[in-house]
C-alpha cells in the first residue's frame, strides 16, 4: 500500500493492486459501473482484443478500454477521476464488435463517463453541449444562419428551432432525467 501513499505513480501496477484486500468501496465500483450500463464488465478476461483496435490506445491515452476495465474490476476509482480518457472515447464500438465475452467495452467507457458526471469530473465542452441541447434542442449549435442562407435554405431547420412546442417537450423530457438531478446546467 505504500505505493498509494505516495499518490498516483506514473505506471500503476494493476496486478499488484489486484492483490489488495477488497474493501466495501472497492466492491462497489464495479457494481456502480454495472448499474450505469455496463452490465457485463465482470465477464472480461483481459484478452486485449478491444485494445488492439481502439483509437484511444493507439493514440496514447492512458486508460483505454482493457486497462480501464481491469482497474475498475480491481476497485480503482478516485485514481481514475481526473483522467480524460473516457471523454475521448469516440463510441466507435470496434471493441464491442470484437469482444469475445460480449463485455461491450464501449459501455464501460460510457458508464465511467456517467460515474464521472456524478462526481462532477466533466469537462466544460460536455457541459456546453448539454446546455445547448437544453436551450436549443441541438448540442452542436452554431449560428450557421449565413451558411444556410448562402445555400438557399430557410434560416432555421425544421427542428426544435422552428417548433417551440417541440422544444418545450424536449425540455420536459430532460427535466425527468438524471441531468436534472445532477444540476449540471441551469434548467429554466
Amino acid at each position: 500500500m505504500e505505493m498509494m501513499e505516495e499518490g498516483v505513480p506514473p505506471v500503476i501496477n494493476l496486478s499488484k493492486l489486484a492483490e489488495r484486500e477488497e474493501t466495501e468501496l472497492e466492491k462497489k465500483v464495479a457494481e456502480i459501473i454495472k448499474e450505469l450500463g455496463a452490465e457485463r464488465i465482470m465477464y472480461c478476461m483481459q484478452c486485449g482484443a478491444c485494445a488492439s483496435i481502439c483509437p484511444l490506445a493507439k493514440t496514447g491515452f492512458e486508460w483505454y478500454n482493457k486497462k480501464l476495465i481491469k482497474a475498475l474490476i480491481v476497485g480503482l476509482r478516485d485514481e481514475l477521476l481526473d483522467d480524460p480518457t473516457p471523454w475521448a472515447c469516440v463510441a466507435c464500438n470496434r471493441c464491442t464488435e470484437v469482444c469475445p465475452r460480449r463485455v461491450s467495452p464501449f459501455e464501460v467507457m460510457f458508464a465511467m463517463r456517467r460515474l464521472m458526471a456524478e462526481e462532477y469530473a466533466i469537462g466544460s465542452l460536455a457541459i456546453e453541449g448539454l446546455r445547448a441541447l437544453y436551450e436549443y434542442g441541438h448540442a452542436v449549435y452554431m449560428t450557421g444562419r449565413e451558411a444556410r442562407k448562402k445555400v438557399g435554405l430557410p434560416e432555421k431547420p425544421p427542428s426544435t428551432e422552428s417548433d417551440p412546442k417541440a422544444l418545450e417537450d424536449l425540455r420536459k423530457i430532460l427535466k425527468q432525467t438524471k441531468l436534472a438531478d445532477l444540476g449540471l446546467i441551469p434548467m429554466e
Partner: protein
Amino acid sequence: MMAETAKEEKKLKFGLFLGCNIPFSRPDVEVSMRSIFPALGVELDDLLGQSCCPTWGTMPSIDVVGWCAVAARNLALGEEKGIDLITACNSCYGSLNEARHKMLTNPEIHRKVNEILATIGKKYEGKAKCRHVAWVIYKDIGLEKLKESLKYTLDGITVAVQPGCHFLWPSEIYPDREKDPFNPVVLREICEAMGAEAPHYSKLIECCGMGALRSTDPEKSFILVREKMENIKEEIDADLIVTTCSSCLIQLDDAQERLRKEGKLNFSIPVMHLVQVIALCMGFDPEKVAGICVTPRDEIIKRILENKR
C-alpha cells in the same frame, strides 16, 4: 411485370433526420439530400420538431434512460407517420439505432422511456428505425437506378472511401449490415457504379479522430488524420475522398488544412459526402450542394462536370 408494378406503387418515403452538424455546419449536405432523393423517387418528410439525436457527449454520457428518451422522441416523430428516418450523419445513425436496440432488448428501459414520453403525450413502440442514406441508395433505390439518374460520372477519378465508424459497428444494432464490417464494400460499390475507381487501402476502416477525441486532445486526433491522409496518398493516390459521415467530412476537410499550415502535410485531397457527389453528378448547382469546404474542391468539381454521361 406484376411484381414490378407492385414495387413501383410502393413509393419510398422517409423522415429527413438532420441532426446538428449538417443543418448548422454543412447545410450544403442538407441541400444535397433534399435534391437527390426526390429526383430518385423518394419522398422526404421534414419531421417538424426533431432535435439532436442525442449525440454521444450529451445524454449518453449522463444517463441511459435519458439518452433513450431523447432518441425515442425523435424516432416517434417518424413512427407516428408510419415512416422510418433517414440520415447522412453517422453519429445520428449510431445514437438513434443504439438507443432503439437498448429499448428493444431491455423492457425495463423501454417502459421507463414510455413513462417519460407519456408526459408529453407521446409513445414509441420500437417500430421506426433510422436508415442510412448510403444503404437506402444501395438497397432500396439500387445502383442501376442511381446510374440512370446521372448526368455526369466519376469516370477516371480515383476515390478513397471513408465509411466511418458508425456505419459499421456494432453491427448487431443496425438495420443494415455489411457482410464483413471490417471489410466494408457498400460505399466502394456505390462509387464504382458512378464510374470511379474505389480501391481498398490499408487504413480504410481507421477512425478519422473526430468528435470526442478531437475535443479532448486535438494533437492526438490529428495523428489519425495525418496517418490516414498519407496512407491514401501513398497507396492509391486518390483524387477525392468520399465519406458517408458528416463528422468524417468536417474532420478530414478541416484538419488536413490545419496540418498543411503546420507544415505536416504537403498535399491536398478534396473531401465530399456521398450525397454531395451524387448531387453534383445529377447536375445540381455546385454552389448549393458542395459550396462549403476548407480544402478546395474547385478542380475536382470541374473534372466531374467535364465527364458528361
